[in-house]
């Protein structure tokens, strides 16, 4: 059976900040949705269904908030789905929406992900109470720091690699008007002398806590034909999950991430991701995850990822730009972060990334992960429609 090709014809984001005191949750999501509709030059009646995603409901203190958001998202009288797959949710949400078009259930779908983290404290929201977790794991950083240590020991990567990633991403963010952190006076020395939070992760190597939303309009071939701007075409998309903890789990390079990437590359006909992919938006909440994911996603051989970072390959003007938008290290409304990766990848192949545009980007990967490095969602988008 042939699936309907899926095109991204509208993208909208809020200006991500620490606290949007000026809008309600409904106001926040509507801002992103309206911008996506404007980008696609479509109106609410053109939308057949809404697929919304966010991380745990506790972050805003609203149980299943999509029910309350139905009005703000123009969903009344339409189907509305709410996805929750931990940190990968922004990506998963886009993939669920894409499948509605691919299966020809709907023609044009609004998909949106958000988090309004100023409503609570995400770090403590992620610190599970006894008896679920020992009391010393404060936030996600406490969980991931030991796995970063394992990567460093395994590969012999120099201690400075993490700071290079943070310095690059925070500088890229200066070119992205929607990014949360705009640190105009950033220097490598400042990153390297920032306070140690979870050894080896320093304050400046850690994602911020943001309020923000991201929306996309996905449509079929017919819809893409009417698009006022060049669409991004979905060439492959996949999700993979594995358990949180088990004997033999490789936290440094989880099998689910490898399998997910392999599935996406197979769908898209990518044989050599390092050569064939022009830009990557990967989920890097802590600096060291850039070299780790470079290996996990097949851009570098095992143990070699840090060399790409160190030699400048992942810089905006490098051979394989990673997170030209500034990434999660500069903007992190958790539930939206995955969708921002997917949307930024689409912006690159549409040639609409503005100052952080990668010259000539025709193929880009969007990547998200969540939970204990166990939930993965990815899509590969291109400037041309898929041939098969």
């Amino acid at each position, binding site marked *: 059976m042939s699936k309907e090709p899926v095109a991204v014809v509208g993208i909208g984001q809020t200006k991500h900040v620490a606290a949007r005191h000026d809008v309600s949750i409904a106001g926040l999501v509507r801002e992103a949705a309206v911008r996506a509709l404007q980008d696609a030059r479509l109106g609410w009646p053109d939308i057949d269904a809404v697929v919304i995603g966010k991380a745990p*409901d506790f972050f805003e203190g609203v149980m299943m908030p999509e029910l*309350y958001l139905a009005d703000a998202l123009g969903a009344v009288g339409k189907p509305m789905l709410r996805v929750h*797959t931990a940190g990968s949710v922004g990506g998963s949400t886009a993939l669920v929406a894409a499948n509605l078009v691919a299966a020809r259930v709907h023609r044009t779908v609004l998909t949106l992900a958000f988090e309004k983290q100023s409503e609570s404290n995400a770090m403590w929201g992620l610190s599970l109470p006894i008896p679920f977790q020992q009391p010393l794991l404060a936030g996600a950083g406490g969980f991931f720091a030991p796995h970063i240590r394992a990567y460093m020991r395994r590969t012999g990567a120099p201690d400075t690699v993490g700071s290079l990633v943070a310095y690059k991403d925070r500088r890229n963010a200066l070119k992205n008007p929607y990014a949360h952190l705009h640190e105009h006076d950033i220097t490598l020395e400042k990153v390297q002398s920032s306070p140690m939070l979870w050894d080896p992760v320093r304050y400046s190597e850690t994602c911020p806590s943001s309020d923000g939303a991201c929306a996309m309009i996905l449509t079929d071939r017919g819809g893409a034909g009417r698009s006022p701007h060049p669409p991004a075409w979905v060439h492959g998309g996949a999700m993979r999950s594995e358990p949180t903890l088990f004997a033999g789990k490789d936290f440094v390079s989880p099998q689910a991430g490898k399998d997910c990437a392999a599935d996406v590359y197979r769908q898209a006909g990518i044989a050599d991701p390092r050569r064939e992919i022009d830009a990557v938006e990967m989920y890097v909440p802590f600096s060291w995850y850039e070299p780790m994911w470079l290996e996990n996603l097949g851009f570098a051989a095992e143990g070699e990822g840090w060399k790409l970072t160190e030699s400048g390959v992942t810089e905006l003007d490098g051979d394989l730009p990673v997170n030209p938008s500034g990434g999660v290290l500069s903007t992190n409304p958790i539930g939206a972060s995955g969708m921002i990766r997917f949307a930024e990848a689409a912006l690159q192949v549409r040639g609409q990334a503005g100052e952080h545009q990668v010259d000539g980007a025709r193929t880009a990967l969007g990547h998200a992960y969540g939970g204990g490095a166990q939930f993965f969602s990815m899509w590969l988008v291109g400037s041309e429609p898929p041939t098969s």
Partner: protein
Amino acid sequence: MPDAPDVPDVAVVAFGQSEHRANTADLSEVEMLLPVLAETLGQVGLTAGETDFTCSGSSDYLAGRAFSFTMALDGVGAWPPISESHVEMDGAWALYEAWVKLRTGEAETALVYSYGKSSPGHLRDVLTRQLDPYYLAPLWPDSVSLAALQAQALIDAGHTDERALAAIAARDRTSAEENPHAQLRGSAPPERLLDADYLVRPLRGHDAPPIGDGAAAVVLAAGDTARRLCTRPAWIRGIDHRVEPHALGVRDLTDSPSTRLAAERAGAFDAPVDTAELHAPFTSQEVVLRKALRLGDDVTVNPSGGALAANPMMAAGLIRIGEVAARIHRGASDRALAHATSGPCLQQNLVAVLEGDPR
């Protein structure tokens, strides 16, 4: 639905559920769920991880912790890694996501499960957190009180009365005598039920669902795979869901336009159904749904006892689909309708139409 000719037919080929209980303090969610998964997958000779796709539905607010679904996934055993997704919704919507996945042709089989434990908290309080956080939730209006508003609106409009509501309760709980999974089985006759005090006027205890814990699972399969796994697959002929405004003040609580539209899109009105399983946690909500779905007296409604006999949060909608599928599997129904709901006063509704092959 714009069906391309080569879109695969998708069927429910297996269904299982827990014994729904008021309190399962002796079991974790995973312990409640795993026997249901094993039993359901066993019906078609599969184990977890052997289906092409897995999708679940649950709520962090019921579990009282973030990412609660990851504990269930650990129990399911996602190794080697699996293609998997989760909705923070009733399992009926997880089934919908899986149905879409199978329709893309990317998967031929899917495991769908959902579960909820209401017993650790105070459900009437917990559900107030589902309401508009600025204008409604601060008032803590509880789910029974909101349903009572809807029931009173129905009575005022002349659509029902307290005796008719009692008859619905008595019918469902009498039907549940045949359902070993039900939490409440058997009922006094309607006239005796009316002797009870009000819970929230005009609702009495019998008008409200039992609060309890439970889990359910379904296996979906496409085309010839479904025929190989099941002697009489329950084909999903149509499935659709719609949402209404959240604010009760802008809705006509005596009607359910979202249910009617979902039913139209699912093809429910194209031919008569012999059976309907309605996710009506309150007796009064069956009145709304019957009208929206144009169900006549010739349709067998809630042979399982419905949500009035067992209403495990996040699973009760999926169970409606599973119950009609199981009847089709065993030849007790040929064309049936299943309905699931979410949100206050039937805000969001899903309708599925299932059929067996001609006998």
